[in-house]
């Protein structure tokens, strides 16, 4: 199917997310959509798939203008979208997930559906049991299921939004093979990503987005530097390592034990130096989050002590941790960090530690404008926080931190951000280290952990490794530890 977009505009409040997009997406090829976070690519895809309506502009399918008013009508037109997080029904059977989206018929023809499902699977070499429950599947398999479901429902164009996040490399290879087969069969495959290698390796065409506009359309052979330039308007490079640790122990963990309903972390002994960065590696759910929350005063340890300097914080309430100079930055920005419905200015007023009664609005405005420019937040003082893109929300979250912090705890500080924002965020964090802040952060990106940590702790099912000097290890070694191999248990006390 040929898809054509003409002069598409979309505003969210004062943010112009799509600014006159013109794009032709012919059938039979894999089309890459490249751009940093907040560049407008997700917005455009959501317009195509009916989640949003464009404020202006036209969508033509095979030359005919259509109106896509909701996701169901988008699918009726043959456009299927694979979301970053699978939109399925985990407690239900695979086959029922398939049938839910099917229109018409009070009584679904289950037998027929199972047969068609198996035929489809064969075509791509997938192996999902139609009678298993969705919550038993891996993320990669759920993605496969979603692709099959969309095809089964008659999709002739497939949009994939950052589809390689959270799946194994084997599943990624499988996914790419599948996409190639689909394109060969004449389908339009739209591959949205900010990962350069993937786009370069897979796509026959790439459209680059920046600030809501299409800034370039490129065909192979790709020159990486050119793509980067188009995405960011300038070339960025990763910081070389910065060391700020001072040798002086700032935080001491004395046989700290943490428990929740499924994890036991036992007897962690650790001294953390001033200015040191400690990366927490491990599969999601191996105990890193509980560990961070305990250090932040949000969970109470079942044993052991947390000492900041000489001060014993064990068992004290969160506010004492905060007042002592420990700050916690959660990954769920809009749920735990920011307050939807309040403006940027109001956020900065809330974060200032003034003991006054009345708010000085003009001073607050100055502070806000100042922070907006020094943290390069794309938004205005009156922008509501939920109107900002994810990357800008993350910048705002960091801009809200108190000026003097002794210990900073971060959950996935750069998850979902583009390279430029990630590098920028780490450069501000390293600045803090130079002034004596120690940092703990968890991340599922091993490169990030290797690049920015002084020492690394690997978590595996509640076990914590000995601290590893990051200069002495490699992605391979960490990868093995994360998988539970070569794990040296800490000595018990």
């Amino acid at each position, binding site marked *: 199917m040929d898809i054509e977009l003409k002069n598409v505009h979309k505003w969210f409040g004062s943010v112009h997310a799509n600014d006159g997009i013109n794009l032709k997406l012919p059938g039979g090829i894999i089309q890459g959509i490249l751009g940093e976070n907040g560049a407008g690519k997700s917005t455009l895809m959501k317009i195509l798939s009916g989640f949003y309506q464009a404020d202006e502009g036209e969508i033509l399918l095979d030359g005919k203008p259509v109106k896509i008013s909701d996701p169901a009508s988008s699918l009726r037109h043959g456009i299927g979208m694979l979301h970053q997080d699978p939109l399925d029904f985990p407690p239900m059977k695979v086959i029922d997930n398939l049938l839910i989206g099917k229109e018409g018929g009070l009584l679904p023809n289950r037998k027929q559906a199972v047969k068609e499902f198996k035929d489809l699977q064969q075509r791509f070499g997938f192996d999902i049991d139609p009678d298993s429950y969705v919550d038993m599947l891996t993320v990669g398999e759920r993605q496969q299921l979603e692709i099959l479901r969309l095809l089964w429902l008659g999709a002739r164009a497939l949009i994939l939004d950052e589809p390689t996040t959270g799946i194994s490399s084997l599943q990624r290879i499988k996914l790419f093979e599948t996409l190639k087969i689909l394109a060969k069969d004449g389908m339009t495959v739209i591959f949205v990503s900010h990962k350069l290698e993937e786009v370069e390796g897979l796509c026959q065409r790439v459209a680059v987005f920046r600030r809501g506009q299409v800034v370039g359309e490129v065909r192979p052979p790709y020159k990486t530097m050119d793509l980067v330039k188009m995405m960011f308007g300038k070339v960025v490079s990763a910081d070389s390592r910065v060391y700020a640790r001072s040798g002086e122990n700032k935080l001491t963990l004395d046989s700290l034990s943490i428990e929740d309903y499924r994890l036991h972390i036992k007897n962690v002994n650790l001294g953390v130096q001033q200015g040191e960065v400690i990366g927490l590696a491990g599969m999601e759910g191996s105990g890193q989050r509980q560990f961070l929350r305990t250090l932040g005063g949000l969970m109470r340890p079942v044993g052991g002590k947390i000492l900041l300097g000489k001060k014993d914080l064990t068992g004290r309430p969160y*506010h004492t941790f905060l007042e002592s100079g420990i700050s916690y930055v959660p990954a769920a920005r*809009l749920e*735990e960090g*920011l*307050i939807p419905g309040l403006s940027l200015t109001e956020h900065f007023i*809330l974060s200032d530690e*003034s003991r006054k009664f009345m*708010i000085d609005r003009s001073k607050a405005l100055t502070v806000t404008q100042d922070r907006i420019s020094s943290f390069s937040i794309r938004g205005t003082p009156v922008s509501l926080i939920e109107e900002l893109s994810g990357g800008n929300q993350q910048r705002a979250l960091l801009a*809200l931190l108190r000026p003097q912090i002794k210990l900073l705890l971060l959950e996935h500080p750069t998850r979902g951000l583009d390279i430029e924002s990630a590098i920028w965020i780490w450069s501000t964090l390293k600045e803090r280290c130079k002034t004596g802040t120690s940092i703990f952060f968890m991340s599922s990106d091993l490169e990030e952990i290797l690049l920015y940590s002084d020492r690394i702790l690997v978590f595996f099912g509640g076990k914590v490794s000995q601290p590893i000097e990051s200069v002495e290890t490699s992605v391979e070694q960490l990868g093995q530890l994360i998988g539970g191999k070569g794990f040296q248990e800490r000595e018990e006390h």
Partner: protein
Amino acid sequence: MSKSNSRWIGLSFRVGAIVLALLFTAIVILVTNANPLDVFSNILDGAFGSTDNFAHVIVSWVPLLVVTSGLLITFAAGLWNIGIEGQITIGAIFTTFILRSLQDSSVSPAIILILGILAGIIGGALWAALVGWLKVYGGVNEIFGGLGLNFVATAITLWLIFGPWKRPGIGSMSGTQPFPDALSMPVIGETSLSIWPVIIAIAGIVIIYILLSGTYFGLRLKAVGKNMRSAFLLGIPTTRYMMLSFLICGGFAGIAGALQVEAVYHRLIPSISSGYGFLGLLVAMLVNYQALWVAPVALFFAILNTGSIQLPIVLKLDSSLGGVLQEALVLIVILMEGARRRFMKKE
């Protein structure tokens, strides 16, 4: 779309809602075989027909304004203080207690009245604190806690009126023995209206407006109401702010109760809260929790309340027609708000 443009659209949706509510009520009136125009003109006459009538409007405006002011605080913190009726009642009981205790003493009436109001504030705040305490430490939703305590407050009132505080001889639904004239607030001319409650009510809404729009306290309260989890991580003591908002709202409810005792009924009656608490919830919703609009909208409600009193006498209609109009108005305005959002999205 420009800002002023969207404001005009918002306004026209509101005006449209009022027209629709009037139409709806007109249909209800037609069903009862009466003439809607007669009814509306009677309501207006009942409210503005004489100085005395208008004085009654203001008498009814004061408690409504006071409770709505308080409710803005709990709404800002994201709390539904359904228990406001009980808080008015307990405030009134505390006031009655002070007035009864001191009426025969040599303390000057002005001091007694002031002490009575302070006691009302304490009573309302205590009753609200109970709701807050149940919510914060007991995990009881404030709607259920508040509703339950409303019944308890009514029961206590009835027990006092028919028990310890009963009139000489026999207790009656007409309430406790009225206080001596010296304990009445001075009235304006021949009317039943006293200026002091009006001053207190206006000062109250001004304070709430400043609190919510210009202070750290107000902004933090809003943060708690919009996202408690983030507010907590930002360092706002969320439970303390929730308790404080209950205390403030309860205090305002207590003032309303005190004024009902001191300036309107001059005694404790069984239905001392007169439904002003629930009506206040409606007003707060109708103005979309904006302090600026509380006073005029509460006045409009007071006009309907007072104006419909004479419907049974003149037109043999039930006076609850005023209530029908009020509730239809709130429902339709909220409905139109939803319609406006969809409309603005399409624009």
